[in-house]
Structure formats: C-alpha cells, structure tokens
C-alpha cells in the first residue's frame, strides 16, 4: 500500500514550524529526510506518524535514543507484551525469536529493565519492537547518533538485511547526508519547515538544485570540504 499523507502541518506557540506538506512513499522504498537542526525534520516525522495512524495505516517509530523509547522502571518483557497488545496481537514467542535472531539480540535477559542491557542492545530491541506488526512504514529519527559507531554500523546493516525482502518502507531522518546517502534511494531536504527538494539519491548528489541541498552535498564529506 502506498503511503500518502497530505497537508501535514504544525504550529508551535504561534510559529509555523511545518508548512503544509505532502508525503508519498512507495512500499519498500527507502527515503532519507535530511536538513539542518531546527529545519523541522523531526516535526514532519511525528506529524506523518500521527496522520498515518489516524488513517489506519501501520507505522512504527524508532526515536533517536533508547532513553526516549523505554521506561526505566519496566522490564523488557513488559515492553514487548505491551507493544504486542497495542497492535492487538496475541503473544507469539516465535515472532519474537525471529526478530531477535534477525537483529542479533542475544545474551540479554528479558526480565531485566532497560538499563540492565547495553545501549546498543536496547536500540536493537526498540527496532525489533517497531517491526512486530510488520509496519508499512518505519520512521527512524537519527538512529545512530546516540550509539557508538561500531554498534551503530552493525545495527544499520542488520536492519538493511531484514528489510531487503520486505514491503516495509523506511524513512530515515538525519542531519547527516553522508549517513543517509548510503542507505536510501530517495532524498528529501527540509529547510525552514518545508521540503525544498525531493529527488532520487544519485541525481540528488550529482546535481543538487536548491541552496540547502547544495550546502548539504558540499559538506557531505570530511575529506573534500568546500573552501
């Protein structure tokens, strides 16, 4: 099912932080949403999630840090049960084992609370929880910035492999074009609460049109900085 949301907008304390925006994402598509901090990326992500949920589509969200996804007072098993319950699914140990195997979640006790797990495992658990209902769209907000690079790279590779033969689309929200460019086939650039550019990744990198996109492209790489 193609994901379509029209007229998404957000106004916070009298200031428009997201101008009316339409988003279309095809099944299985990988889309990057990039822009400077304060450009409205996360706001668009949240508005999109709320809208799609209201439209009855299955959408899952992975926040930046596991601290924003897990209750420190509740066990991991509780979180998992609750996520299943929220989707009206009956508990299914096989489903959990499959997801844990796919994301290499191992050697951690489900009866422990989040802080009894390493942060990398917490983040993988959050991703696994997001995939429980095989959502139409997975929204990831800066999924790697709270993790150490080795763990983050491993997690992204595992997720890529898991999604490769599935219909779940991915929206990757990040300020880092270098990260997004490796993972997505389409890039959207945000600036001041608007999507100012939307193009396939290769075309985008070769010929950025807007000033914001040009700046992102020019600063993509540490080794060849513009002067």
């Amino acid at each position: 099912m193609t994901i379509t949301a029209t007229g998404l907008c957000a106004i916070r304390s009298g200031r428009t932080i997201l101008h009316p925006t339409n988003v279309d994402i095809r099944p299985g598509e990988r889309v990057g949403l990039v822009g400077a901090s304060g450009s409205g990326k996360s706001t668009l992500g949240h508005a999109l999630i709320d809208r799609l949920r209201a439209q009855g589509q299955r959408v899952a969200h992975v926040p930046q840090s596991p601290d924003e996804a897990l209750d420190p007072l509740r066990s991991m098993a509780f979180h998992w049960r609750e996520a299943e319950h929220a989707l009206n699914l009956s508990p299914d140990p096989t489903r959990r084992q499959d997801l844990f195997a796919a994301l290499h979640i191992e050697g951690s006790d489900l009866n422990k609370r989040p802080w009894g797990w390493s942060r990398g495992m917490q983040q993988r658990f959050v991703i696994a929880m997001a995939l429980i209902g095989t959502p139409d769209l997975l929204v990831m907000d800066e999924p790697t910035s709270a993790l150490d690079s080795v763990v983050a790279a491993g997690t992204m590779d595992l997720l890529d492999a898991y999604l490769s033969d599935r219909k779940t689309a991915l929206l990757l929200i990040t300020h880092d074009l270098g990260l997004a460019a490796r993972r997505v086939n389409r890039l959207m650039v945000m600036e001041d609460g608007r999507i100012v550019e939307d193009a396939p990744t290769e075309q985008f990198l070769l010929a950025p049109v807007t000033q914001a996109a040009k700046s992102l492209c020019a600063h993509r790489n540490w080794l060849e900085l513009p002067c």
Partner: protein
Amino acid sequence: MLTVDHVSVRRGTTVTLQDISLSLGPNRTLAVVGESGAGKSTLIAAILGLVPCSSGQVTWDNAPVRRCRPALVMQEPRSAFNPRMSLRRAVMEPLVAQGMVADPDRLNALCHGLEIAPDLLDRRPTEVSIGQAQRMGILRALIAKPPLVLFDEPLSALDAVTQKHTARLIAQMQHEEGFASLIVTHDLGYAAAFADDIAVLRAGRVEELTRSQSFVQAPQTAYGRMLRDAAFTLGALEQVA
C-alpha cells in the same frame, strides 16, 4: 609541548586510564578517538588536573600543566554558559579570572576569525543558535591566548553542515594562534580530516597512535580496523580507493 608520561588513573578498584603516554607540540592537533567508556573524558580531566593521576604525570614544557593555563571547549555549548550572563561577560571571564585586562582589538579579531557578528555578544546563551553558541565557547577558550586547547566532542551537538563549518574555523584559528590542540571525538571523519595524529583509546589504553592519514588507509590493530570500517559504513569516511 604537552607531555603525558605513563599516566594511570584509578577510581577505587576500577582502572579508567592505564599507562597513557602522549605528546603534543604547538600548532599540532591530536585527535583522541574511541567509544563511550573508553576513558576519553577522563583523559581530559587528567590533563587538566581535575582527577589525580595514580601514577605518571602530565606536564607542559616540564612544568605542571595548570601553569600554562590550558583552555577547554565543551560538548554542549548551551549548558557550558551561565544562562543569566550575557555572552560578552561570559567570554571575558577567563581574562577576569587571570587578572588580565580586556583588549578590544583581540576580541574583535577573534570575532572576525570565528565569524561571530559582534552584536551577538550582547545576547544571552539561549538567544543564539547552537552553532553560534559553540563558536562563543571557542572564543571564550581562546581569549586569553592559551598555548593548549582541549576540545571535548566539540562538534557532536551540531548538525553535519555546521560541524564542518566549525571544524574549519577551529583549524583557521589554530593556524593563526599556534596553540596545541587535543580533540576528543568519536567521529573518525573529523579526526582524519583535521588531526595530524590519531590516538585510539580503548578500555583506558592507547590501542594505536599513528598519523591520521596512515590510520585511515591502514589501521594497525584489529580494533582500529573495526572503528574505521564502521565509520565507512555510516558514511563518516569516504572509502579510500
């Protein structure tokens, strides 16, 4: 010249730094990379004398480091400032603390070099962008002409474009002022592009200490390779052909 000579730091029974030896001369940049918990922040604290070394010593030109009055740039630019104090007063504080007289020409020159519009100085820390606030943090660090500046994850609160802009300004200021700069970062791309040398810290030890270019091309240790490959995978480095 900064000399870290066989420094170990223990807290209770846990060893947070073990037998660290580094040196860093004027106008040089050393990047300390590693994962969280590797002891990067403890190393900065040990150099500044904020935690006692259980063995070894840290010196600047054979004298205690404190005597050279090193400066520190912190990770979170906004929380590094007193929110009730104007930025102008805040950036002048190192001078006040050292009993020095404020020199308007120097302030103007630094503002110019760091691309800070002078009227921003009259705002409060919450009234400027994060990138501007971090440039203010650098300005405050440099105002008293320290020979040694320590940067603790100076870019990690900034977005990708601002990171690169700020990194270039730091390098330009170093070129003009000639300070020795020690940068703690988890970003290998930044380290590779701007540091002369890279020290890989792991579980309190220096795993590897090499020229940054040779590290990117061929890390000497397995752990160094893991870090480099992860940076490639995440797009922080471009694959070297």
